[in-house]
């Protein structure tokens, strides 16, 4: 029974994918959208069912289908595992997924290949579920690469624009760099423990036999590289902002709420491994903190509404990694969930705005939308407050927990994290002010058409906004349902923070910081009514920021260009050289034959002479060698 339901949970989106890809065109847009949505809703229902079940029993369900890959000393099963962690992820993947599918029905309605869009979205959900449900690292890897593929397909959804295709390709390849890390991690784990199965692995590690710290650290590092590819951490983060080329629901679903959290999922899954590699944990924490700050600074000056949100996502992911690095897995998970709510809401809100403005994404050409689009405005405001960490919205709780943990372990990281959250507050409200306040700066025609989005678009916004507001309830300090729920997963029990003076102080500092950020934004964009300058006029440090620290250019110069040069060099020179060596043998043979040809001068006398000489030579040899003949 459980197995069948779990398979329904897994395969419903896949069936949706098949239906849409093969029949979608003939079914019409609405039906195709409905199929896509229902498929995910079914998965959501199943996830809910299992969630309630496991919440009561606490027993993970593991499903073994068949042996998949045989390795000499162990078998890799095709199996699934439904435990606390995977169900939590399933809930918000399918939940938010359903909302976004719903949203897409309206958002993509004008696109002629809507059925393809839904097919890809369904496929994505399918792979995401595979990733989350996999009972071993390799099944997880199927999902891991699968979501990368869907991300590629959806970023390049409007394939006629080669820039979008470039972005899609970049995302896929950067992800694959991470994937290689992941694979290497799998190899190391494989030959260290002879298993890839999570349960067995955990048991083996906790039993603590033959643990070579060096190799564990290597495995941790490799896996972290994998995670940083998928979750857009330094140095592999540059694909995520480019990925905004895809349709907005895709950005919301894949590049904010679900796929990019896969790295966090994986590290949380393997927390028992990372606990044994403190050096790697430190690296994770530092990289997370730096990513969060760097991305936030870039976010300050971006003018594309989706780019701002993209950098914000990178920054928030950095915070989650900071939490992971500090060993506070449940806090990272907490932030993943709250972030999924408010970031999905923000993206969908920005989608609503873009929809209203007919695909205008530049904030300099927005403004004053507050009155025209009240629902969008309010929901986005709530989410912005949440992400900025204003009491009592969800972001406050989760971010606060992270900063608190950081403070206890390393004040430097705390400072960096706090700085990042102040910047977050600033750029979010910069976004809000530029978009919704003051006068409209777009064209007259756009102004004429300004309207609130249809209910199909606003409904998901409202739901997500509510969740963004109250999401913090699942893990209130001192009384955390989430911590309790996730407890069986972790090897080390995490001690809850005492809510002492320090903690309240920290909360206050965080809130003040957030308010400060909002205040600066207010001063700059409402009081002084500034509008960001044209691209060419940006100077000084903000130009560096605006150009994202020139990281893309640096990568281009130190990696892509040399490889291409090398490729040309190999193609033009080495290939020719190798070929000419081979030809050299032929030429040598030719030359020898040409010389030898001269012996054949046609004179019979000469031939006879040669014959006589040869005969004599052979006979003399035989005589000299004392052979009897």
């Amino acid at each position: 029974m459980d197995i069948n339901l779990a398979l329904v949970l897994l395969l419903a989106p896949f069936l949706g994918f098949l239906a849409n890809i093969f029949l979608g065109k003939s079914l019409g847009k609405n039906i195709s959208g409905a199929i896509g949505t229902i498929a995910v809703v079914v998965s959501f229902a199943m996830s809910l069912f299992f969630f309630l079940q496991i919440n009561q029993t606490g027993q993970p369900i593991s499903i073994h289908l068949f042996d998949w890959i045989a390795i000499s000393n162990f078998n890799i099963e095709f199996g699934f595992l439904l435990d606390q962690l995977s169900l939590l992820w399933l809930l918000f993947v399918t939940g938010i997924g359903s909302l976004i599918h719903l949203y897409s029905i309206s958002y993509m309605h004008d696109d002629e290949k809507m059925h393809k869009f839904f097919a890809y979205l369904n496929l994505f959900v399918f792979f995401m579920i595979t990733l989350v449900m996999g009972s071993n690292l390799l099944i997880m890897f199927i999902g891991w690469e699968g979501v990368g593929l869907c991300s590629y397909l959806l970023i390049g959804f409007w394939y006629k624009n080669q820039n979008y295709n470039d972005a899609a390709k970049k995302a896929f390849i950067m992800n694959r760099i991470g994937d290689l890390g992941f694979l290497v991690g799998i190899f190391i784990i494989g030959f260290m423990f002879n298993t890839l199965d999570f349960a067995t692995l955990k048991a083996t590690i906790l039993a603590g036999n033959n643990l070579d710290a060096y190799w564990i650290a290597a495995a941790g590092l490799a896996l972290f590289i994998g995670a940083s590819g998928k979750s857009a951490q330094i140095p592999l983060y540059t694909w995520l902002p480019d990925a905004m080329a895809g349709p907005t629901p895709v950005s919301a679903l894949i590049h904010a709420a679900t796929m990019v959290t896969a790295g966090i999922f994986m590290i949380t899954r393997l927390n028992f491994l990372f606990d044994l590699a403190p050096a790697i944990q430190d690296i994770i924490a530092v990289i997370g903190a730096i990513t969060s700050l760097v991305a936030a600074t870039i976010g300050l000056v971006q003018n594309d509404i989706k780019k701002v949100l993209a950098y914000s996502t990178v920054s928030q992911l950095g915070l989650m990694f900071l939490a992971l690095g500090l060993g506070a897995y449940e806090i990272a998970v907490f932030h993943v969930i709250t972030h999924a709510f408010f970031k999905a809401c923000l993206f969908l809100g920005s989608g609503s705005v873009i929809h209203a403005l007919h695909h205008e994404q530049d904030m300099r050409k927005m403004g004053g939308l507050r009155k025209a689009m009240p629902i969008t405005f309010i929901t986005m405001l709530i989410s912005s407050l949440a992400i900025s960490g204003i009491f009592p919205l969800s972001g406050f709780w989760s971010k606060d927990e992270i900063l608190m943990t950081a403070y206890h372990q390393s004040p430097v990281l705390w400072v960096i994290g706090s700085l990042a959250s102040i910047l977050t507050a600033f750029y979010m409200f910069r976004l809000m002010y530029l978009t919704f306040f003051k006068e409209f700066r777009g064209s007259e025609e756009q102004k004429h058409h300004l309207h609130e989005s249809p209910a199909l678009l606003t409904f998901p916004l409202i739901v997500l906004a509510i969740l963004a507001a109250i999401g913090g309830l699942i893990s209130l300090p001192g009384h955390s349902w989430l911590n309790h729920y996730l407890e069986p997963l972790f090897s080390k029990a995490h001690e809850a923070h005492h809510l002492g003076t320090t903690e309240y102080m920290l909360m206050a500092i965080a809130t003040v910081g957030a308010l400060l950020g909002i205040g600066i934004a207010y001063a700059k964009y409402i009081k002084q009514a500034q509008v960001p300058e044209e691209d060419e006029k940006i100077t000084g440090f903000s130009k560096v920021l605006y150009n994202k620290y020139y990281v893309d250019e640096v990568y281009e110069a130190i990696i892509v260009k040399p490889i291409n040069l090398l490729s040309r060099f190999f193609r033009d020179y080495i290939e020719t050289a190798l070929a000419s060596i081979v030809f050299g043998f032929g030429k040598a043979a030719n030359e020898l034959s040409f010389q030898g040809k001269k012996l054949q001068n046609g004179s019979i006398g000469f031939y006879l002479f040669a014959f006589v000489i040869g005969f004599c030579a052979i006979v003399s040899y035989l005589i000299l060698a004392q052979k009897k003949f």
Partner: protein
Amino acid sequence: MSTVLIIFCILAAVTLASAFMTIFTKNPIHSAIYLVICFFSIAGHYLLFNAQFLALVHIIVYSGAIMILMLFTLMLMNLNKEDEVHKPRITRLGAVVSFLLIISVLIAIFIQTKPIVGPYDTTGEDYQSIKVLGQVLLDQDNGFMVAFEFASILLLVAMIGAVLLSKKEKSSK
């Protein structure tokens, strides 16, 4: 020194000398005549071995048939002049060198093999009369019957070939 040995020495001297002259005479007709002498002396050797039949056949075939053929050819081509250009010196040197080489090598072979020269005891058995030869040649069971037949075919073919080759081509070119 017995009579036989003396006869042998004379015959051998004639053979070698005439062979030598065959090669060194400028006029081809003279060469042919020296060659005839050479063949006759070889027939003499055969007679010395008491192989009369062979000697006769030899004279008929070589001195009779082959030499006549050659002479006819010479006359046909009108080559009885001494118009042969000498080969370049290097070729002649080559010829001399190979002559010396091959003679030394062949002699070396015979010395090397160290033939056991025992007494030539004769059983008095007849082994080379025409009768015996005929038996060996034409015996059906362990003779050379088949080879003999083939030899006749060979001659036939050679004859046809010679006729074909020397026939004037009418429609060539």
